């Protein structure tokens, strides 16, 4: 370890065990010392002794108001860096207070994907060594790194499984009614059978063997299959669905930062963008809904800030510069259309993609949304996949446009510089021409 790299001491104040584990595993990568506190009272005990460089604070602690606590600490001269990563603070005024008055450097709403968290922590830990760079490259394959890579890939694979079993379940329901082709379901089951266990999902692998066997019999002669066979098949699919869903839930809560992180790191070192990491702001007065959207999009490695009011929205936008804004139409004290129009008046947000998400689906409302300056309109309820696809498409497109625009302005500058040179050299040569003709004449 480079002796210049001072070890960072982090005081982590959060009552959520899983989140603390996530931060600890990220912190280990950067050789930082992490002191944990599960409440403000515990933090109070640790703070005088630990000389924290950084405090990571959840604002939803049982034993008091974390914002007030932080304010008191700041007033008494505590100058450590503070990150607030929380499930709370969904008022725009909380955000502006934390950022502008209390000197909070990073503010994130949970859930935060491990990848994003890793990136943010990396940026602030000031340690540039890669976790695997300490090993000499000639020392054979770095098995730990490969295992991490495989683990990351396996997480990705596992995430797709519940949907694939849902598909199988629908297919089997149809087959039972004498509809559809058994071969589609059979091929799908066969693939899962071959692949799942290679990714370490042995239980699912075994269930897939049963499903594959049953489907072979169905494919051979569906009408000859008895009730017992259908039951075995359906039970196996249900069980596989349950097991795969469970493992997705588990990987969501315990996702190892290094695994996911190294995959993305590998991607970015290859110069490949994974098209993710968009900053999204969502404004909706329904906290359950913002929570769901945050989960769905956060899961796709977007960084989602959710607010339940639009009062200080322009300050929030100015501070966060999001790639996209999701707006609810009906909020108690304000009309979404008005918010949208107001945002469009500000030249900074003229090109910000704005998407309405609302239960009002009449054509008049849809037209009004576009009139107010929205880019898209998604009716509630919305299927997760559609939400992801639409939001990603909008955000991606606007990012590309920005790149093109900055490229155009660079080109314009270059042309201008060349033009100036040309004018200058013309002027010089004219002068030289004049002076030489003056000499000769």
């Amino acid at each position: 370890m480079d002796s210049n790299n001072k070890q960072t001491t982090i005081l982590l104040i959060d009552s959520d065990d899983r989140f603390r584990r996530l931060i600890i595993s990220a912190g280990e990568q950067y050789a930082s010392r992490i002191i944990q506190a599960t409440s403000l009272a515990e933090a109070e005990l640790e703070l005088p002794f630990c000389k924290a460089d950084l405090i990571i604070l959840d604002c939803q602690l049982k034993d008091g108001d974390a914002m007030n606590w932080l304010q008191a600490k700041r007033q008494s001269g505590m100058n450590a860096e503070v990150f607030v990563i929380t499930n709370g603070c969904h008022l725009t005024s909380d955000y502006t207070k934390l950022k502008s008055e209390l000197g909070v450097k990073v503010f994130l709403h949970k859930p935060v994907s491990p990848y994003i968290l890793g990136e943010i922590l990396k940026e602030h830990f000031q340690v540039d060594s890669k976790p695997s760079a300490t090993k000499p490259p000639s020392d054979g394959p770095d098995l730990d790194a490969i295992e991490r890579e495989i683990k990351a890939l396996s997480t990705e694979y596992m995430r797709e499984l519940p949907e694939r079993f849902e598909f199988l379940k629908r297919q089997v329901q149809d087959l039972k009614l004498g509809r559809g082709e058994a071969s589609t379901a059979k091929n799908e089951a066969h693939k899962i059978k071959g692949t799942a266990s290679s990714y370490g999902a042995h239980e699912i692998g075994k269930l897939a063997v049963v499903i594959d066997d049953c489907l072979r019999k169905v494919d051979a002669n569906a009408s000859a299959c008895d009730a017992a066979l259908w039951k075995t098949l359906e039970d196996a699919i249900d069980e596989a669905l349950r097991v795969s869903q469970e493992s997705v839930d588990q990987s969501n809560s315990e996702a190892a930062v290094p695994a996911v992180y190294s995959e993305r790191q590998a991607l970015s070192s290859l110069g490949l963008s994974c098209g993710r990491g968009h900053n999204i702001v969502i404004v909706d007065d329904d906290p359950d809904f913002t929570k769901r959207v945050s989960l769905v999009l956060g899961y796709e490695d977007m960084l989602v800030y959710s607010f339940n009011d639009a009062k200080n929205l322009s300050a929030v936008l100015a501070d966060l510069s999001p790639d996209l804004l999701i707006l609810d139409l009906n909020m108690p004290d304000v009309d979404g259309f008005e918010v949208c129009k107001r945002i469009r008046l500000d030249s900074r947000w003229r090109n910000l993609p704005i998407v309405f998400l609302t239960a009002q689906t009449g054509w008049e409302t849809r037209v009004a949304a576009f009139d107010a300056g929205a880019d898209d309109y998604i009716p509630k309820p919305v299927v997760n996949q559609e939400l992801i696809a639409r939001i990603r498409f909008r955000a991606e497109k606007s990012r590309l446009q920005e790149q093109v625009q900055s490229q155009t302005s660079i080109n314009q500058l270059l042309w201008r510089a060349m033009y100036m040179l040309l004018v200058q050299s013309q002027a010089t040569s004219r002068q030289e021409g004049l002076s030489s003709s003056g000499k000769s004449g």
Partner: protein
Amino acid sequence: MLKIDKVLLVDDDDYIRRIAEIALKKVGKWEVLLAKSGSDALTVAREESPDIILLDVTMPDLDGPATFAKLRECAGTASIPVIFLTGRVQQDELARFNELGVNGVINKPFDPMKLPEQICQMLGLEQRVN
């Protein structure tokens, strides 16, 4: 003496290709060529002359055995060792594959960390460590 530098991996399942690619590239330290169908495999095999071919058995259109037959027909690819990857484990099928003249059969699921070693053993090679 056979030496492995370049492996062609043929499988229609994305996730099998991805995990096997990591294993072959990182653990085996081999160059990996990928094909997702039997007909792709024939083109790649002709153009790139891999040292071995890992061939999935169950694929739509041209399946493993059919692809294998075509590889053997073509002079450029006739002598490339072929190992089948299969999710089927029935003994009669194993016997049938061996009769076709493949150099080995690897069952899916496989342990990715051990895949290169398994291939080397099957071909009677010592695993090379770069």
